[in-house]
């Protein structure tokens, strides 16, 4: 009796409080009925090991209690393929983001290869654990809202990419996304940006006020571009959305480039270096930025025109079926 009581108490601890008594009473009755039936058959009381075997037949308290819960799994079989696909995307972005960080640390002389790799691996592991945990929690929550039943009911074969559509280069897209994520994190001050001048003693490059003025627009532009890259990677069929986003980000980028260009001076060299040397560096850096803005502007105009041309000449949604 003591063993059975201990067993039932172990189950009761893991059951919802409002149902525990009722459920345990039923299991108790079953165990006692089976014990009596066995004792009748043997013509003697069961010993402790026989009662123990009887209890073991019912199962481990954790397993028995869990069977009374409505949810038997963390992520169900319907949601699992979406969960794995999301994990793959997250893993690729993380691997590339840390690879870019490690490579830039080496290129700009902040660390040797062994240290950069070691730090990247260590950071990758902790970030991957956090990211996978977060994805699991999101899917756990999604599944309780009916996902993916709605999605499975609503998806249309017509939305799949056409065979002739250019399939995105998965690693290339992941690389662009990783760079975008890294840039946004740097812009928000969450990760350092590897810069060569950091190795020059006595030199500090200070951003001019124009950067503070365009902080929010630049962030918005980078987020929009990240969304564009994600859609291009994961939903290449959404051509109209891609075209609109492409034109919008190109136009936004052009406007921003113009505003930034108007400032005329973007970084100020200061520090303990001799004044003439600082002046030379200041001039050189700002000339470099000047041409960089001109180049970005030209590329953006080209991209914008290219996208507008595509918009004007394509008919989204049309499917051509070739007669055989």
């Amino acid at each position, binding site marked *: 009796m003591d063993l059975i009581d201990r067993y039932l108490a172990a189950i009761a601890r893991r059951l919802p409080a409002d149902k525990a008594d009722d459920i345990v009473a039923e299991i108790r009755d079953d165990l006692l009925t089976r014990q009596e039936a066995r004792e009748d058959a043997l013509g003697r009381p069961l010993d402790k090991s026989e009662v123990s075997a009887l209890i073991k*037949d019912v199962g481990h308290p954790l397993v028995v209690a869990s069977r009374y819960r409505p949810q038997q799994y963390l992520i169900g079989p319907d949601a699992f393929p979406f969960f794995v696909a999301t994990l793959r995307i997250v893993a690729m972005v993380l691997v590339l983001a840390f690879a870019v960080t490690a490579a830039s640390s080496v290129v700009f002389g902040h660390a040797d290869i062994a240290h950069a790799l070691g730090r990247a691996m260590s950071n990758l592991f902790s970030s991957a654990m956090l990211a996978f945990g977060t994805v699991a929690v999101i899917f756990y929550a999604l599944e309780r809202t009916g996902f993916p039943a709605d999605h499975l009911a609503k998806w249309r074969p017509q939305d799949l990419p056409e065979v002739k559509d250019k399939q995105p280069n998965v690693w290339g897209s992941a690389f662009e996304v990783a760079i975008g994520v890294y840039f946004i994190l740097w812009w928000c001050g969450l990760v350092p940006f590897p810069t060569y001048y950091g190795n020059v003693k006595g030199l500090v490059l200070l951003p001019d006020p124009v950067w503070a003025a365009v902080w929010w627009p630049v962030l918005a532009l980078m987020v929009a571009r990240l969304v564009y890259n994600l859609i291009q990677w994961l939903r290449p069929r959404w051509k109209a959305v891609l075209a609109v986003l492409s034109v919008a980000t190109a136009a936004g980028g052009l406007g921003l480039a113009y505003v930034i260009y108007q400032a005329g001076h973007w970084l100020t060299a200061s520090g303990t270096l001799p004044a003439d040397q600082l002046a030379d560096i200041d001039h050189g850096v700002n000339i470099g930025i000047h041409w960089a803005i001109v180049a970005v502007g030209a590329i953006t105009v080209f991209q914008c025109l290219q996208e507008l041309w595509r918009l004007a000449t394509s008919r989204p949604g049309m499917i051509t079926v070739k007669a055989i």
Partner: protein
Amino acid sequence: MPVDDDIFEKLRVELRRGSLVLAVLGALREERYGYTLRQSLEDAGLLIDEGALYPLLRRLESQGLLISEWREEAKRTKRFYRLSVDGTDTLAALLHEWNAISDSILRLTEKDK
């Protein structure tokens, strides 16, 4: 190549799991409590995992297919289960499905007999 025993066992458990609800509903056309229900299933050749029967009964009850009540019998209070009206209709529909599946399988495997 002979099929691995483990694979066969998994397939067998999968096959039987689906039919267990039908067997339980069928057996509960007569009122029974857990122990006698399991006895009747075993007598019919259907073994059920000891820890799985009661959660299954609760689930079927919460789905409205069974009704239950606590009553005293043999000096102890026991929970008796029987089919509800909805359960009776569902059992009839499931039996129809079962027979259709059985016929289809027989037709498909006739030449193997």
